[in-house]
């Protein structure tokens, strides 16, 4: 609970404080919208609508432009994401070594499509154009772990490790 006695959870208060610190550190710096969005997403895990509106108020940038930038870049997410992010590489090297088959199998295993999240928020599935470790292709990344030299059959044993 919040110290002031209201019913707001302490966690939310903490996040709001972090957001204020973020605004302070970028105040007056030109071209700061993208770093602010990146910082806000690091705090909340995604960019809730209210936070985007708050960014617009704090920076004086029209909400339309804030939403415009947030939806333009692939890095920004406007809805909550899973605890584990599965990124399937569909780069050229992975493509010629069977990346598409890996992607198909991951979709079957998780029962979700690209850019979707499982209902229990356990996994979010994404594709990337290249992870830059073509020597290990085909490759997937789960959170920060890279799994290379894959075959469709290996996927089940990998995914089971991520709760």
């Amino acid at each position, binding site marked *: 609970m919040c110290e002031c006695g209201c019913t707001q959870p302490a966690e939310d208060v903490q996040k709001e404080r972090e957001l204020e610190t973020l605004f302070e550190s970028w105040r007056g710096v*030109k*071209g*700061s*919208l*993208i*770093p602010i*969005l*990146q910082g806000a997403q690091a705090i909340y895990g995604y960019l809730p609508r209210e936070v985007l509106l708050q960014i617009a108020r704090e920076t004086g940038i029209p909400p339309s*432009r804030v939403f*415009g*930038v947030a939806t*333009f*870049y*692939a*890095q*920004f997410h406007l809805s909550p994401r899973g605890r584990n992010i599965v990124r399937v590489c*569909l*780069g*050229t*090297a992975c*493509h*010629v*070594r069977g990346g598409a*088959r890996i992607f*198909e199998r991951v979709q079957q295993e998780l029962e979700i499509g690209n850019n979707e999240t499982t209902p229990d928020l356990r996994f979010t599935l994404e594709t*990337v*154009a*290249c*992870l*830059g*470790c*073509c*020597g*290990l*292709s085909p*490759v997937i990344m789960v959170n920060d*772990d*890279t799994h*290379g030299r894959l*075959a*469709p*059959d290996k996927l089940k044993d990998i995914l089971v490790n991520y709760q």
Partner: protein
Amino acid sequence: MQLVRAHVLVCGGTSCTSSGSKQVQEVFQKELEKHKLEQEVKIVETGCHGFCEMGPLVIIYPEGTFYVRVTPEDVPELVEEHLLKGRIVNRLLYKAPVTEEQIPTYKEIAFYRKQLRVALRNCGSINPENIQEYIARGGYEGLEKVLFEMSPEDVIAEVKRSGLRGRGGGGFPTGLKWEFCRRSPGDLKYLICNADEGDPGAFMDRSVLEGDPHSVIEGMTIAAYGIGCREGYIYVRAEYPLAIKRLKIAIAQAEELGLLGENILGSGFSFDLHIKEGAGAFVCGEETALMASIEGRRGMPRVRPPFPAQRGLWDKPSNINNVETYANVSVIILRGADWFAGMGTEKSKGTKVFALTGKINNTGLVEVPMGITLREIIFEIGGGIVGDKQFKGVQIGGPSGGCIPVELIDTPIDYESLIAAGAMMGSGGLVVMDETTCMVDLARFFLNFTQSESCGKCTPCREGTKRMLEILTRICEGKGVPEDIDTLERLGRVIKGTALCGLGNTAPNPVLSTLRYFRHEYEAHIMDKRCPAHACSALLVFTIDEEKCIGCGRCLKACPVGAISGAKKEPHKIDPEKCIKCGTCFEKCRQNAILRL
């Protein structure tokens, strides 16, 4: 400085890290402590050595012994045998693919022998997080020379004379670009490094930033002095966290030693460098889009002219070059334009880094003199094609480039020859393809990429790439019609000529070049409803060779839709009505009894 008798270089590049080099390094540390060797032997975490296929890589100096695919379990043996007893651990040496001969030092390995490392000169040899190691290899001497012995005009003249051209793909003469920006009126000018390496299959900029960040910082500072910039930005892809981390460390170290920031080395020249993290948009590799992104806007390109040299970042004259271009600058200053111009061909000087991937034995990063032939890169450095498959072609320059067929394998690699062949240098991705790669599917793959990365500002790119992708998808699914080829060519030409920026202008290249060299594959898909490479699943028919099938039941159990039937130890059958052509049976069969037609 503490002297040690041996150095253990553990590769800390992205590929080796993902195959476990961190654990290898930790076990080394423990083993050295166990044997009380920590005062005698020093572990150095280096940047990428380029030979990613064989990672994690460990090199032990002074001998220069090159160990490949080292696992944490191998380390105790390496410490005991190599470092204590002085005996080479043969089983961990690199084996030449054909002769099976074990090669102890890396200079003798074919993969390295033909290379000429200029931009990658320090990658894999130094600890990128320690500025002293860069300085010990002649680092920042070029900057010192420039600041105290050369005028800004001299710097530009020297770079012009070296013949250095932009390594990001366009190939514009670097010195000339600097001169344009220098001559633009205005006191405030910006210097930008494009490290938004987005081409799938290219990772040279990442390796330079991770393995030798100071070479880029020094090159940028020299450029800033030549052009007259006080402030600079490095725009790095957010997908490259390690590169960003190492750049931050490098900038802080350079500032601390007075090699960056206010009054550099007491010369009166000042230069501030900032890092800007991208947010995931391929089009931001285009210079005007990149600048829009730094300004905090949607990364959309704009019409040129005015060129960035006239009006760039925040409407001020700006110079923008790629990572690899800047990495060449300090060596050019230090060793002279003549030395640099002595490498390469008449119009393309120096060296180029290529990311060698696909169906090739030695995947990795290679730097070669311009003018070398594709054959030398693929068969000598790259060790040829995986397995006993037939070489079919090579895709150069990622989604902007084109396919070069086996007939043109003796094409020398330089900017002009590649354009004449319908490809382009691009960022330097080289994806090797064998007979099992379908060229229509490959063209579709690239177009799918450019189409989804199109920013949507101009109509030819937004609508045109979408229509081309629809046609290609249709062809791959066996629903193509004869007019499709003409339509693709017409659309391709129009998009090439009318799109606003480089992304759109080059997006049709993979389609046009495969149509030029592999038209028969398109025709086979459209007329005969057949994929010659057996890659397009919609056009495949799976059957079982009754002679070879032993009725083991592996395919029957694996089939996700129950399309396979048959009694144990009797030849099985596939029901074509039920088959979804997933290929699982083909993977499972140990008798090669599954036929793809």
